[in-house]
């Protein structure tokens, strides 16, 4: 094992003004900085989207509440959904992907660094445009404000008759821009992973995180584009009086639903596959075992990618499709559970017999495993058409997909934060605060989303502004709202821990977890050039080979 660095001679970092530092961040094309920009941007919107959720939960705390107006409530659920999907989940996952993929495959940067920066700023501008609607949505009509059509924006709610003012335009243009940004980033991911791997890193030796981001990138290309097309059509309807979704002129509202969900369902997997990627990196390191069933994991991911494009209409059972469509989409929904189940077994197989280290990253992974399993089971329930007719658009559905997105994806993201924070910042986080964050968030999550299933089964529809007393919903709504405050406190602990650790945390060193992938071979934080010499790998765990020259992995692969 040798140590090396590139000595930067003659360049002494001058003390720079805030303006100069901002300038370097705004003009940067470095994948690590863009990754961090994505993550910070997403964290800001996470706080905003969380506040919107809190406002809704306070409104639903008791029957006949008037904490906010009905119009504002509609804006809140629309903005909450749109923000959390497009401006929190996607950018935060793109951020981690941007930061980690080149490091893990031994590359200097992404394939197209300027396209990378362009994509980030497009997405960022999309978010600003969406939120500018709070000021500019009124237009000349004196009505509107923020979008209030729900995050699906079903026709005819988006028609001029029902959505006066410019709120829908802000919604559609904001998402259009963010969509172009996502496509640019996806192109970058695929090109980077296929073309910039360091010598020896064959596809069969890539870290699973790179593999899963490759699949995600390919899915973005085929899933975001239909949304982009549908948004262009909606723009034409709104700005040029076209008739795509105008039922008065023979247009079809159902066509929008199909176009939206052709995007909408693969989108779930676009979000969850990078979360799978985090789990697949963290679980082996904290179990001190290589991942169980690497080729099967890759195959299952590719399988999910394909099948997820044939399940979209399980969001539409209640619109009245024929029995063949209902049967097809029920079966395909059941099928997607198979590769997902394989993955869960593989993670359990990795942990089985391992020497588990119960630090924050692993705790969040274990939370993920349990919660994602339950989310998958309620998903199978909702995927059965007859069950779906009973409970669609109830709080049962809301509880189900929050189990996926919060209990699954967000837990994985928190785990990833703790796992890679030492690499990104060069400092260790505070383990006690991290565990406090885990338990607070776990309790809050289960209070909120376990008990949200029950009013759904009792018939409480989603998106209602308020409700009558005496339907048996009151106690459940109180518990759900109490859980939100646990989650808020947990998140404050999380942010405080990160801020404290950036300035006061102990130095992390190159490899605080005794891990095996390439990003841990360079310094924390990595230098601009990532690797002083181009790495050469011979197995899936190059750092293991270096640490154990007597028993390297490549003898067995």
């Amino acid at each position, binding site marked *: 094992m040798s*140590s*090396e*660095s*590139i*000595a930067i001679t003659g360049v002494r970092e001058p003390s720079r003004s805030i303006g100069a530092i901002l300038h370097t961040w705004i003009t940067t094309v470095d994948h690590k900085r863009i990754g961090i920009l994505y993550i910070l941007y997403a964290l800001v919107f996470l706080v905003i989207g969380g506040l919107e959720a809190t406002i809704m939960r306070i409104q639903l705390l008791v029957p006949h509440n008037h904490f906010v107006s009905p119009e504002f409530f509609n804006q809140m659920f629309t903005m909450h959904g749109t923000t959390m999907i497009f401006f929190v989940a996607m950018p935060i996952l793109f951020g981690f992907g941007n930061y980690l993929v080149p490091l893990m495959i*031994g590359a200097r940067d992404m*394939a197209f660094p300027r396209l990378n920066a362009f994509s980030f700023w497009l997405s960022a501008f999309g978010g600003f445009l969406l939120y500018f609607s709070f000021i500019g949505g009124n237009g000349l009509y004196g009505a509107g404000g923020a979008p209030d059509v729900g995050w699906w924006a079903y026709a005819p709610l988006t028609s001029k008759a029902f959505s006066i003012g410019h709120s829908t335009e802000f919604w559609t243009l904001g998402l259009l821009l963010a969509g172009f940004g996502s*496509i640019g980033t*996806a*192109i970058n991911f*695929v*090109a*980077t992973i*296929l*073309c*910039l*791997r360091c*010598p*020896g890193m064959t596809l069969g030796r890539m870290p699973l995180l790179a593999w899963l981001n490759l699949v995600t*990138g*390919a899915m973005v*290309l085929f899933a*975001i*584009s*239909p949304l*982009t*097309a549908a948004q*262009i*059509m909606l723009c*034409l309807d709104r700005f*040029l*009086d*076209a*008739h*795509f979704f105008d039922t008065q*002129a*023979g*247009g*079809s509202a159902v*066509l929008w639903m199909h*176009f939206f969900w052709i995007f909408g369902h693969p989108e779930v997997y676009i979000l969850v596959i990078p979360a799978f990627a985090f789990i697949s990196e963290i679980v082996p390191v904290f179990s001190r075992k290589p991942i169980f069933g690497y080729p099967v994991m890759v195959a299952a991911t590719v399988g999910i990618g394909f099948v997820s494009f044939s399940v979209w209409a399980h969001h539409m059972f209640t619109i009245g499709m024929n029995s063949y469509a209902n049967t097809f989409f029920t079966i395909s929904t059941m099928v997607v559970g198979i590769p997902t189940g394989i993955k869960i077994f593989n993670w359990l197989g990795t942990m089985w017999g391992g020497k588990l280290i119960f630090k924050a990253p692993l705790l969040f992974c274990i939370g993920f495993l349990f919660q994602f399993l339950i989310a998958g089971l309620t998903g199978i329930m909702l995927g059965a058409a007859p069950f779906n007719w009973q409970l669609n658009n109830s709080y049962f559905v809301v509880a189900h997909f929050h189990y996926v997105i919060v209990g699954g994806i967000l837990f994985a993201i928190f785990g990833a934060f703790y796992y890679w924070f030492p690499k990104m910042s*060069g400092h260790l986080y505070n383990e006690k605060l991290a565990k406090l964050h885990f338990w607070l968030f776990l309790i809050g999550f289960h209070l909120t989303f376990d008990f949200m299933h029950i009013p759904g089964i009792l018939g409480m529809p989603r998106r209602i502004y308020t409700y009558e007393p005496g339907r048996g919903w009151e106690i459940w709504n109180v518990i759900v709202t109490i859980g939100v405050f646990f989650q808020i406190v947990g998140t404050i602990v999380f942010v405080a821990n990160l801020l404290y650790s950036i300035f006061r945390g102990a*130095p992390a060193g190159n*490899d605080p977890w005794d891990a095996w992938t*390439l990003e841990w*071979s*360079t*310094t*924390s934080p990595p230098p601009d050039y990532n*690797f002083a*010499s181009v*790495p*050469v*790998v*011979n197995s899936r765990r*190059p*750092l293991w080979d*270096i640490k154990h*020259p007597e028993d*390297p992995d490549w003898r067995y692969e």
Partner: protein
Amino acid sequence: MPQGAMLVSTAVTSSAPLESQWVRPYKGHVGMLCLIAAESSIFTIFVVAYLYYIGKSLSGPTPREVLELPIFATVCLLSSSLTIHLAVAGLRKANYNAFRLWWFLTFALGSIFLIATGHEWHHLIYDKGLTISTNLFGTTYYSLVGLHAFHVTVGLIGLLTILFLALFHRVEQEHSKNVDTFAMYWHFVDVVWVVVFTVVYIVGR
């Protein structure tokens, strides 16, 4: 933290013999193929909408009344695929005159196609009274053909840029891969026109 300590990283090198040669695909081609994949999805949605709305307009004019087959424009656009192929082939052999000639012809043929589309639209709007808001046919026709025309326009801007660079002798043999990447986009625009032509002028009429 001392700056020196942060700059030390572990070199990951190999003592075992590496496979003879390390070959990876060219990133320009992969990136362009990804863009084409995304664009194909966008066009697919517009084509699906077009097919779905055939015959569903509540008022006239209908496609059979107003549309005529744009044979000449189609021949021009499709032959431009051949000329751009010959241009890239010339560049690979460092035959710069052939490159410039075929490249200019590609640009000219693409421009003729765009002008023909403009003529068709002018005829439809001013003589036949068909606009994007007239009926569902107008909505789907102008958006699908317009989306394609937009891609032709972007392609023409690219063609013109490279043409100027070539006229100032800034395009060399070593750039043939980059130029080839752009040619992939132009071939894609041509293939899309085959689909649009079939859907709009044959199936939909």
